[in-house]
């Protein structure tokens, strides 16, 4: 497996858009060391910050993360990236396939615009995880985003399709959601604010917007399919989908075809 070992905390934010198993596959170690990753006029290269050991495999390990590592796994189309430590903003942005795993926490906008593959964050995620960056049409767009810890506010903002699993999320989860599914042990205030379509599933929620209406409890086939889909990723979220749930329909201030399922227990 290819390994990049961080020498010390980077002196500036680093852009990893062009550092992935595919781009490193055809390079020698000296060529890889010259890849530009800096974001200032300092002109930092990969070799300035990392000890590089290439073997041409599709598995890349980044030993020693930092909250200054931005766009790790961005536009990834295959292979795996494992970061031992934290990462910065836009983890897996625009990703098309493969898998990115972070053992620490991620900054804001993780998974933004990702159309395929799986992003797993063992720690916490910042605001707008699975959300749209400024002026973008959509947030998460088909990929799977798993956050074992907590996510910040605006989780899945303008999410278009795909699946987000999270331990807990802050306020405005699923805001302006176009479609897709978010499952969480708990969501903060105003989940689904302005959502058009999509599904939110939560063990508990904060204050609901007045434009969500309760439709009661329903034994729908869809919930069986959802539970079966979630079980390989997270048995606890699958159990949530299989349990007693109260459904809220919204956001009726917009299209109103979204739904919020909250544990009735």
């Amino acid at each position, binding site marked *: 497996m290819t390994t990049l070992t961080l020498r010390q905390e980077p002196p500036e934010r680093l852009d990893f858009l062009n550092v992935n198993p595919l781009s490193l596959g055809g390079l020698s170690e000296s060529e890889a060391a010259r890849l530009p990753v800096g974001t200032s006029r300092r002109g930092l290269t990969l070799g300035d910050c990392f000890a590089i050991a290439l073997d041409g495999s599709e598995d890349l390990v980044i030993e020693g993360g930092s909250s200054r590592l931005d766009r790790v796994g961005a536009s990834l189309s295959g292979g795996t990236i494992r970061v031992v430590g934290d990462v910065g903003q836009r983890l897996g942005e625009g990703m098309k396939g493969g898998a990115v795993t972070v053992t620490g926490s991620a900054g804001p906008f993780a998974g933004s615009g990702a159309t395929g593959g799986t992003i797993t964050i063992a720690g916490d995620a910042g605001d707008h995880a699975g959300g749209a960056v400024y002026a973008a049409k959509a947030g998460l767009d088909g990929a799977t985003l798993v956050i074992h810890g907590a996510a910040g506010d605006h989780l899945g903002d303008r999410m278009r399709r795909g699946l987000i699993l999270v331990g807990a999320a802050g306020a405005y989860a699923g805001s302006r959601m176009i479609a897709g599914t978010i499952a969480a042990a708990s969501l903060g205030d105003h989940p689904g604010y302005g959502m058009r379509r999509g*599904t939110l599933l939560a063990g508990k929620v904060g204050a609901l917007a007045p434009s969500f209406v309760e439709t009661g409890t329903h034994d729908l086939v869809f919930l069986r399919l959802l539970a079966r889909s979630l079980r390989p990723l997270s048995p606890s979220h699958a159990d949530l989908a299989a349990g007693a749930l109260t459904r809220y329909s919204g956001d009726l201030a917009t299209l109103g075809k979204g739904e919020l399922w909250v544990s009735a227990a």
Partner: protein
Amino acid sequence: MAELTLNGIPVIDTFAEAFDVAGTAIIITNDTAKWAMIAATTMTGFATSVIGCGAEAGIDCELSPEETPDGRPGVRVLLFGFEPNGLKDQLLKRVGQCILTCPGTACYAGVDGPTKIKLGGAIRYFGDGFAVAKKLPDPLTGKTRRYWRIPVMDGEFLCEDFVRAVDGAVGGGNLLFLGRNHAQTLRVAEIAVDAARTVAGAILPFPGGIVRSGSKVGARTKGMMASTNDAYCPTLKGRAGTELAADVGVVLEIVIDALTSQGVAESMRAALHAATEAGAAHGLVAVTAGNYGGNLGRHHYHLKDLLSKEPASEAGAA
């Protein structure tokens, strides 16, 4: 024609002539096996002949909860038509009128194949704009499947976005049982049907799997596409062209459609062996098969190739 025997019963050395058709399968689930079967039975009604009904359909098998996408009891239904567009039309009508309407029922694709047929994506318009689509990963295959959730009065009708039609489906495999009296010949045909249905991916679309009104192409009446198979009508014995010996009093036919040519051959083989094993005790005179001279359908299932219990080589080739 030369005469063969199987289990002491004469088997006429001829062949069944069958046709390429468009075929698909869907899985119907419900909270109980009873209601899944009610939906499947309703959907496969009036589907005996593609000429008169637009499609031939039947129940392939019952499925346990472990075998269905949503973990509920299910039934796999096969549907055949002349070509994919006609099949689509029939599928939409039958799912729309018989599955959508049935309490608690959901509907999924039941076979993979090269031709897409939009199903939920067409039926969703019944939802009057309130239907929503949902893409979820299938834990069994890892692939994403798209479903439509259509609000109905008992909750939602969930239907997969599209199903697929297979290449290589064949319709019209058949056997004719020549017997002495009605009750005994019917029993032989029933035994043959039970055996034929053990082959996965094969159905027998006629009532109880059996047809008494075998047909020939054309008629003396102008404009008729098909008419009674007078050569096998016992009341027409003694006329020119009859194929029946003096001791034959009844002829019953089974017709087999399958998703593959091999499925037709194996289903015919199972039926032939079961019928001849029971035949001596039930007055079976002979077994034969129906064809149109070999000029209409490219699949020919020669009965001599079905006499062994196991296939020697692929049957049904042109």
